[in-house]
């Protein structure tokens, strides 16, 4: 949905205040005035009970995840903090092999936040939740003094029904398994950098923020337990996910740089900034480690489910257990270690 139609479907409610005050978190009348339109926006039977928690039913074994969202700036090319919170939580459930069902949502608002911005974020949450068919069943709102937050922080907890065939764990990776990736990496991190103070540069790079559960569930429907491991490549990027998988599964992982898709503009921006795209954050990318017999079909399935640039990027092996290696585009090898901290741009 484009921003114009989202705005049409989600008009700013008439309120007698234009900024968030400490009183909006007080539990009194001011707070009710703020929350009233929110209950309308996210309406569903569980939420409409307006209880302190939600009572819901699930299909049996469930997956639970929780995640905080503090991205700055809150609006960025290709997304915003609201969409990030919904997709991020949905994706963490999907990586467990679960069908996302319910979200609990915490808002921490900084005093002085324009209501218009808050509403834009909330509409974006609604739109993203609708797209993923998840219900926001309970929530919480707090307001902190100016300077004690950064406009808006979100916290989301997600609950999903486990797919009956799901058996996803790094320990299930075995030698010969193929590593699939759903698309080009690095766009989200670079999109955020492009609008940060001190780095802003002109580009058309947009965040790759996207829900992944549909593709994952299709893989599980078709290939079941032959899908051995799933992980979305968020903070720390693809390299960090591979390094962690190798460590947790005590297997060796080898990937080919030439097979890892990186869009040209993202690659160029990384060159200029001195960043390695393999370590740059994504919000709509995941790796699936699958049995070799089904690798080709699984890749085709991924490509059909909305990821035309999906690729098989490497294999799991017996050698160098616990480590991930990259075979460079010119044939040399180097390890992909965990970074000691944030990736910092180089000087020259």
């Amino acid at each position, binding site marked *: 949905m484009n921003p114009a139609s989202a705005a049409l479907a989600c008009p700013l409610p008439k309120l007698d205040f234009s900024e968030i005050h400490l009183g909006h978190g007080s539990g009194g009348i001011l707070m009710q005035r703020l929350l009233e339109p929110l209950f309308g926006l996210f309406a569903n039977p569980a939420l409409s009970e307006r209880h302190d928690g939600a009572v819901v039913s699930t299909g049996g074994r469930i997956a639970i995840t929780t995640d905080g969202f503090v991205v700055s700036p809150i609006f960025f090319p290709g997304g915003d903090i609201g969409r990030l919170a919904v997709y991020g939580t949905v994706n963490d459930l999907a990586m467990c092999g679960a069908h996302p069902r319910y979200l609990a949502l915490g808002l921490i608002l900084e005093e002085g936040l324009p209501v218009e911005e808050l509403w834009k974020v909330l509409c974006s949450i609604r739109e993203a939740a609708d797209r993923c068919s998840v219900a926001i069943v309970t929530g919480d709102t707090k307001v902190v003094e100016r300077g004690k937050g950064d406009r808006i922080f979100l916290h989301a907890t997600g609950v999903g029904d486990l797919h009956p065939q799901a058996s996803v764990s790094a320990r299930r990776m075995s030698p010969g398994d193929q590593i699939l990736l759903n698309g080009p990496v690095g766009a989200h991190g670079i999109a955020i950098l492009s609008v940060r103070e001190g780095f802003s540069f002109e580009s058309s790079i947009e965040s790759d923020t996207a829900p992944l559960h549909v593709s994952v569930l299709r893989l599980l429907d078709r290939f079941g337990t032959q899908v051995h491991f799933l992980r979305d490549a968020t903070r720390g990027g693809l390299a960090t996910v591979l390094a962690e998988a190798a460590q947790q599964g005590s297997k060796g992982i080898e990937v080919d740089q030439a097979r890892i898709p990186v869009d040209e503009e993202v690659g160029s921006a990384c*060159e200029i900034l001195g960043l390695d795209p393999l370590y740059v954050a994504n919000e709509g990318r995941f790796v699936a480690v699958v049995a070799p017999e089904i690798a080709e079909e699984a890749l085709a399935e991924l490509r059909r489910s909305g990821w035309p640039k999906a690729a098989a990027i490497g294999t799991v092996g017996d050698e160098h257990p616990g480590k991930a290696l990259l075979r460079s585009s010119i*044939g040399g090898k180097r390890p992909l270690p965990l970074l000691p901290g944030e990736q910092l741009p180089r000087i020259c």
Partner: protein
Amino acid sequence: MKLLSEYRDPELVRAILSRIGERRTRSWRIMEVCGGQTHNLVKYGILSLLPKEIQLIHGPGCPVCVTPLRQIDQAVELAQRGVILCSYGDMLRVPGSRKSLLEAKAGGADVRMLYSPLEAVRIARENPGREVVFFGVGFETTAPANGLAVAHAAREGLPNFSLLSAHVLVPSAMEALLADPECRIDGFLAAGHVCTVMGYEEYEPLAARHRLPIVVTGFEPLDLLQGILQLVGLLEEGRATVENAYGRVVRREGNPQARALLAKMFEQVAREWRGMGRIPGSGLDLRPEWKAFDARRKFALDSGESREGNGCQAGRILKGVLKPPQCPFFGKECTPSTPHGAPMVSSEGACAAYFHFSAGAVDDAPAEPAASHP
């Protein structure tokens, strides 16, 4: 032209590698001067593809690594005194004698990571009530932009902007290395970016005086291999001359505008290098006519020497005397998460590069590059 892929062509890489193998008849110790070259040699796994007899020694060309402790302490001190302290990304994590700039930031100091010094001028313009200091580190490559920032601030009349200059010059460091009796280097790959600005005339007397060849070299895999091939050729022929293997970017006279700007803004001074001590004429400070923008004068910072106390072997590593794994702290007390010294911090630092490089089973790397995948 696709600059991202053309200089990484696996077929050409294979061809140049085999020519290096054919050309070489004995062992050679080659120093790549620039940290950017070290970074790419590791990143592309080129070290694992070269004949074992070609030994690369990683030189002092990592600006973060050679910035002395004293200057980091001064930057930290300024930040804690309430100025807006701006610098480049990887400078922020280098530990001073008590803390790094990132740690100062966590403690409440206003430290900002910038990509361009002109951003610091903008911050000064937008915060007229506060002092803004740009911590300008780097070689001849970053100095022109930092000089330009001072010129802009002067033109706009921004009294609250100043530069803490930690700039250093490459040829004086090469000279100091060659004068060191511990140093055994057969030839240099000169830093392509530095030569883009400065040209390579000044390397000609250096090559003649010390009787060793120097090849101006770029950064892409093919650039690096071409530089090594030409250097091996000169070494095998016993010719102590300067060649340019980065002709698509570097001219003998460099970039006249940037050189003129450097001459206008800066003067050469003696400067301390981390681990290498004070080297005459190896640093750049603002000329006296720009003293109003010189943070060292403005804030009356002293210019004493650093005292390194943790046994860090950075100096011997930067001189190529020790390989990082030969340092007693390497990979034990000293890792990228707990660095003793700067070469373990920057991704261009030799220690960090080795730490990452040797952390995996890379010894079984094939001698020949694999064909590219579709």
